[in-house]
């Protein structure tokens, strides 16, 4: 994956497939002191036992029944290791999983965070019933939001109502740009296939 935000989409999809109805995404970028970029996804899905936890970064282990190869977590594991970081998975059967991917922020090989706006927008819109919270910290700037806050305001109006879609797009774009003091630091490619 060319962008970390695509890995994030993948992690959240894993959480949903593990039966979670509550998912928290934290992104913490510390460029000055620790020089780290941390991605953390916490879910309340079915969890995994220790044995499974150790094995999921092996591409030939997957919970999928459609194929015998699962690449999501191995790809993330590989990208963190390439960037002086690590991937940790802590899970309790029956109560959920915490996945943390840590990168050296300034590492030459670190993929850009990419289009996090589209990632967060996809998650919110495709899973309106999911209790999803997103918190993004860049140095001392923080932006956080929860899906429920939006759905409570909207009541019976759908998140795919055209005006709501436009609002959501601008709301996310502006707030995330502000994190970087309006510099386009997160960069990333426009088209994943070119």
């Amino acid at each position, binding site marked *: 994956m060319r962008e970390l935000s695509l890995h994030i989409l993948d992690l959240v999809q894993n959480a949903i497939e593990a039966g979670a109805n509550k998912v928290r995404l934290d992104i913490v970028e510390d460029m000055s002191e620790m020089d780290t970029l941390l991605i953390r996804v916490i879910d309340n899905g079915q969890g995994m036992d220790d044995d499974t936890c150790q094995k999921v970064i092996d591409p030939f282990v997957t919970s999928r029944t459609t194929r015998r190869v699962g690449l999501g977590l191995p790809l993330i594991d590989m990208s963190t290791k390439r960037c002086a970081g690590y991937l940790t998975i802590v899970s309790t059967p029956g109560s959920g999983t915490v996945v943390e991917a840590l990168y050296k922020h300034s590492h030459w090989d670190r993929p850009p965070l990419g289009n996090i706006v589209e990632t967060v927008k996809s998650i919110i819109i*495709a899973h309106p019933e999911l209790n999803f919270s997103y918190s993004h910290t860049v140095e001392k700037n923080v932006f956080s939001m929860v899906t429920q806050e939006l759905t409570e305001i909207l009541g019976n109006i759908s998140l795919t109502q055209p005006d709501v879609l436009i609002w959501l797009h601008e709301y996310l774009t502006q707030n995330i740009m502000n994190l970087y003091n309006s510099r386009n630091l997160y960069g990333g490619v426009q088209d994943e296939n070119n």
Partner: protein
Amino acid sequence: MKTIEDLKRLREQVQSQTSVRQESSKQIIVGMGTCGIAAGAREVMSAILDEIAKRRLEDVMVRQTGCIGMCEKEVLIDVVLPGQPRITYGRVTATDIPKIIAEHVIHGHIVKELVVGKITE
């Protein structure tokens, strides 16, 4: 700067325009397993949302699903219209989306050259 307050105002506005919410009966489902994402599912999803906003479609629900085992045909999207079989499109790119939405979602004509499967429910 857009705020939550704007959303509240927006709700009032939308509610006064449409007294009864049309039950979202049309569905578009995007395959977003690792395979789908790697093949460009997020860009397809963005294109769908852009098109909904542009054409002001009030009755379309967008959902995502995981890997369904046809990874080589990703990006896969399903279009489900009420009372019609579920149509699966394969190797979809963002540039195919305006066509699928205009012809199938709005007018009910299946875009045959992109279809990989049909499920009668």
